[in-house]
């Protein structure tokens, strides 16, 4: 028997971490196993409802047995409605889908932009026993900063940057990176990965974000231009080797 992609569960908590940042905990009906970097498609509307229609892709923030955690920011109608979910609400989801982060050779250097911390958190948790992790954490302002103590891993060093200077260093996260030996992991908006590549030209694994309809590689809605033409962020990614990407204007 094949393992079905469709899963279900119940909201166990939906915690407000910061003004627009929430942590959704779902107790799944069956145990889900996922690798760091993979994502799940979560239906925000109640079972049977068609608005919002599409599931939304979310990185696994943490996964322990039947307890799945998703860290998200309210960015539109879908995530706003998600923030209204209450303990006990039934929830439909599917996955996990997509590829995962390769393991680091020695030291791991995380470069996180915005909500990118969600997928890096699960990687950090999985590798911290064997690997030293340095974290560059860039957000717009202090209101978007998830406390370091909230993460499931302990970075050996970290640097917080905000665009308005309300916390940590003022500027873009890419303004403060000092290239060193190690494996680079990027997660965040495309413009962050693009800037990193333009500035440093070093190898890195980048987890990309794109609007998705299906999440399973059939609709061709989430393309990213690479040296081999368009690739699907959902099925060929979301983790890509940064050097393969051809940035479009």
């Amino acid at each position: 028997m094949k393992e079905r992609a469709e899963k279900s569960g119940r909201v166990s908590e939906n915690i407000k971490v910061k003004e627009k940042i929430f942590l959704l905990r779902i107790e799944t009906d069956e145990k889900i196993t996922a690798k760091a970097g993979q994502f799940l498609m979560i239906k925000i509307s109640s079972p049977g409802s068609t608005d919002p229609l599409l599931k939304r892709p979310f990185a696994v923030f943490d996964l322990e047995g039947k307890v799945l955690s998703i860290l998200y920011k309210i960015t539109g109608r879908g995530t706003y409605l998600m923030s209204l979910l209450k303990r006990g609400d039934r929830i439909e989801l599917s996955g996990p889908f997509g590829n995962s982060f390769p393991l680091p050779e020695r030291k791991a250097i995380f470069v996180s932009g915005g909500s990118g911390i969600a997928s890096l958190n699960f990687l950090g948790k999985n590798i911290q026993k064997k690997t030293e992790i340095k974290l560059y954490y860039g957000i717009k302002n202090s209101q978007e900063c998830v406390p370091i103590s909230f993460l499931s891993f302990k970075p050996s060093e970290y640097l917080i940057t905000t665009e308005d200077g309300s916390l940590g260093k003022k500027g873009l996260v890419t303004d403060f990176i000092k290239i060193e030996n190690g494996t680079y992991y990027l997660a965040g908006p495309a413009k962050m990965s693009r800037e990193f590549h333009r500035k440093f030209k070093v190898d890195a694994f980048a987890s990309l974000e794109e609007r998705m309809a299906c999440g399973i590689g059939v609709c061709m809605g989430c393309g990213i231009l690479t040296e081999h033409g368009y690739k699907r962020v959902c099925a060929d990614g979301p983790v890509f080797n940064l050097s393969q990407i051809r940035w479009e204007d």
Partner: protein
Amino acid sequence: MGRLEIKIGSLLLSPPIMPASGTFGYGDEVKEFFNYKDIGAIVTKGLSLKPRKGNKMPRITETPSGLINAIGLENIGLERFIKEKIPFYRKIKKPVIVNIFGESLDEFLQITERLDEFKEISGFEINISCPNVDKGGIEFSKTPDIVRTLIKEIRKRTKKFITVKISPDSDYITISKICEEEGTDAITAINTIRAMEIDIHTRTSKISRTSGGLSGPAIKPIALRIVYEISRTVSIPVIGVGGISSWEDAVQFFIAGASAVQIGTYFFVNNDIFNEVKRGLEEFLTKRRTSLRNLIGSFKPT
């Protein structure tokens, strides 16, 4: 005949439920979790002679109970399709309908002739209704004489199953009659409806083209009405498609006159939808002590 079995031309569909072109890739993408017994046939993404890169991002935007897309027929092209996908079709033992697309008559004919050689391919869905390309697609539908020539010439080149996918933004009644006269086995109705969404901050389209094609539950009542109209006009079978999200929706299409249905956008929402529709339809027929054949076209006009 089994309860959920229907023959359309040379094509035996069991169950009479298929994915809609463009929402199921080439079919092999979902092999890790999908049970192919839940569908009567695979319907591929639109295939062209040469690979197509498709439109720029963003290609999709959500609307209330709907989805607007302008993918632009990104596909791997005929030769890679033959090399990479046909071996998979040999394994899964399901009929395969290839949705074919050309910018010119000649391109359609070359694809037909080449694929006609393969026993793994059961038939063709002729795409004259894609709203998201500059050449070909819906442009064909604007000139009924061109549609007639196209179908006539394709029919000459294959004895396999042929269905024509119709646009709701065309004179679909005239085109349906032409399809019947030129010997297609079925009509697939409907393709997406042309639609747009504007970003009020930039005053530009929310997708990379001005307009795209609307699909999803939002279009179901329109698709149902068009399927009803076409099935009353022609005597060849109609494959109903547009916004089906439950077995009840599928039953409505059969009552309206569809002989089979396709499910598209809702497969993104629920990867189990084919199984749920199959089981729901079967239970409905059992409870009502009726057959699929008796259900088809059983609408009672007021």
